[in-house]
């Protein structure tokens, strides 16, 4: 009796939009915090150690897997310091803006068949829009710190993100033309693409992953936070917890971009076969996560392999290579689609 009543109450609550919204936010945030930031930091440390022939963290837990949990507890206990000449309000606001912008992009990620926070009609555009808001957080964080290196970091970040939004947008547009929709769930359903299109999709995937790496400020495009010249750029004045929130936003965006890559080019939650016991939805989620983490691994591999670009090289890559390539690619794909090939 008690259980039935409880279930009834739960079903009634789930009918309310606000409750569902709240629960989705909690679920997404939990994932970003644990599967995004905490796990990815550990993964980055292990991958970098492996690439540099080191061992990496190994003392906390078996093989060091609990290292980031220990670090998080440590970070939570540390003191907040705001430098005397800093703009207090803006200084506190900046990391939140970066993290929220990254979090918002998870709304349109299709985790599995029917598992999506909200299948927007304009999903792809939405993704591009909310991820472009994060740069404001970086800019004001750099300015509010009242530190010239931070300011340079913020300015570089703005220049970089504005330049790379254009190839990113072209890559998204090409996929939209190809599939005839902007909804991320429908893009997964439209795959696999016709065989004829694959050369162009390959070019498109290259443009997207390059632009996404630049958008997430990672090596070889990490000029905004170049440790060796800008002492970490826009977040050099930030003390642990606020710094951690910046990192949360950054790793959250890294996973979100990888997941979008999987959605657009690698069939999203589709797998070669359904895994036993967990059903179609469960195995869809597993395949999606596996593919996304594989892309994350690829990006880490790139990060620890290549050196950083110079600012002029970086802008040249965007304006003189990626933008023309993306435009031509879009034109050719549109032509093919119009001809009905």
């Amino acid at each position, binding site marked *: 009796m008690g259980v039935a009543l409880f279930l009834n109450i739960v079903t009634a609550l789930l009918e309310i939009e606000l409750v569902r919204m709240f629960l989705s936010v909690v679920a997404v945030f939990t994932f970003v915090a644990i599967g995004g930031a905490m796990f990815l930091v550990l993964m980055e440390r292990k991958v970098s150690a492996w690439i540099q022939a080191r061992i990496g963290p190994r003392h906390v837990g078996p093989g060091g897997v609990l290292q980031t949990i220990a670090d998080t507890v440590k970070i939570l206990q540390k003191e907040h310091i705001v430098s005397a000449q800093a703009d207090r309000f*803006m200084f506190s606001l900046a990391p939140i803006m970066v993290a929220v912008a990254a979090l918002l992009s998870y709304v349109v990620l299709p985790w599995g068949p029917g598992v999506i926070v909200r299948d927007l*009609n*304009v999903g792809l*555009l939405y993704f591009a829009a909310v991820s472009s808001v994060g740069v*404001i957080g970086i800019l004001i964080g750099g300015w509010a710190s009242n530190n010239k290196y931070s300011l340079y970091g913020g300015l570089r970040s703005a220049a970089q993100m*504005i330049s790379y939004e254009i190839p990113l947008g072209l890559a998204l547009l090409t996929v939209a033309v190809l599939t005839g929709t902007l909804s991320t769930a429908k893009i997964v359903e439209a795959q696999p693409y016709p065989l004829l299109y694959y050369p162009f999709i390959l070019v498109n995937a290259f443009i997207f992953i390059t632009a996404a790496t630049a958008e997430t400020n990672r090596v070889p495009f990490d000029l905004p936070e170049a440790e060796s010249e800008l002492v970490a750029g826009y977040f050099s004045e930030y003390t642990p917890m606020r710094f951690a929130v910046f990192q949360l936003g950054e790793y959250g965006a890294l996973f979100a971009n990888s997941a979008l890559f999987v959605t657009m080019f690698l069939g999203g939650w589709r797998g070669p076969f359904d895994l036993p016991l967990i059903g179609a939805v469960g195995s869809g989620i597993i395949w999606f996560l596996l593919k996304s983490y594989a892309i994350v691994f690829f990006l880490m591999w790139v990060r620890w392999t290549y050196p950083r670009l110079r600012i002029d090289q970086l802008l040249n890559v965007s304006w003189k290579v990626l933008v023309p390539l993306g435009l031509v690619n879009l034109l050719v794909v549109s032509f093919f689609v119009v001809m009905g090939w």
Partner: protein
Amino acid sequence: MAGEAIAFYILTGMIVTAAAIVVGSKNIVHAGVSLVPVLLGVAGLYVLLRAEFLTVVQILIYVGAITVLLLFVILLTEGATGLRTRQRNEQVPLAAAVAALFLVTLLVALTRTPWALTNQPSAAYNIGAVGTSLFTTYVLVFEVAGLLILASLVGAIVIARKES
């Protein structure tokens, strides 16, 4: 409906407050950053009108691009201070007169317009429909806007490049 009304008033409050900071703040960086809630609030109003595409474009272009460019320029020119000593000039009476005239015009327009009221939620529309109307009914406007943007682009390049 009550929920929509509440959302509308919250959004309006946010827009008006932030807009007041934009025009009133002594710190030009604060003013620039306050544009973000204004523009996001307008995007929220578009959500209430079920104009998804417009919402997303508003965020992408106004918040993600124009505000960023604005802040970029402010930070480049003002450096780390963001402080402007001079916030007002001698044109206050003239500006007040223009503002009052504009207010009267708006009030007249608002009260005289026969608003078509309906209980039906506005029809869901898609990007395809937007694109089709852009290239059929409004093709002239679209092309003129494109030409304008091209002209300003060329102008900016001409100004920026050094004469050899």
